């Protein structure tokens, strides 16, 4: 079974600085998709960024980018120029490209942004 691990329960960053959230996963599959979701205090889970495993190029979405290392099964999220509105729980998620398309989530990282 696929598992997703986020080893940082909490992270803190100064406003305007850069922070990296870690995520590793375990799978025997070769084709899959990875996601980062943000859950602010308002509770709604919001998609931040996604990465296809077959793509070598790291996904980028404005201030958010990933460092996808397929061999190492690592998928970290970098937030540049952090803003107060970035404060939230961040969940890394895995989704198989085969059969069952449910998402497997990590435990989450709570990000605090200091003014």
């Amino acid at each position, binding site marked *: 079974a696929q598992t*997703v691990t986020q080893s940082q329960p909490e992270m803190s960053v100064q406003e305007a600085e850069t922070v990296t959230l870690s995520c590793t996963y375990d799978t025997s599959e070769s084709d*899959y*998709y990875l*996601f980062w*979701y943000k859950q602010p205090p*308002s*509770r*709604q*889970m*919001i*998609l931040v960024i*996604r990465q*296809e495993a077959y793509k070598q190029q790291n996904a980028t979405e404005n201030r958010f980018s990933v460092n996808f290392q397929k061999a190492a099964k690592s998928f970290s999220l970098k937030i540049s120029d952090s803003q107060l509105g970035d404060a939230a729980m961040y*969940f890394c*998620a895995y*989704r*198989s*490209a085969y059969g*069952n*398309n*449910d*998402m*497997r*989530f*990590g*435990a*989450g990282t709570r990000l605090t942004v200091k003014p």
Partner: protein
Amino acid sequence: EPEVTQTPSHQVTQMGQEVILRCVPISNHLYFYWYRQILGQKVEFLVSFYNNEISEKSEIFDDQFSVERPDGSNFTLKIRSTKLEDSAMYFCASSDRTGANQPQHFGDGTRLSIL
């Protein structure tokens, strides 16, 4: 932007009672999901639903759970006889197409507290 809406935001129920959690997915979406998150733990997949039937379900989704799409807009999760360990945040999600690269759009969640 269209949203997945869930009601109620917080449900308190006596152990052994039935509870129904309601979700209104995004209107043109065809695939529906329920996830739960026990406090301090990972978001876990419960069930996916398409074309008026369950597509996949996890081992958590036992005979106490059922899902239904009673009309064209609502998607409900019923827990027949609640247990203390059912206390969790329950998230509904929907997507417009299946395929692992399609993002799932999440609702705000319903916090279920079993007394």
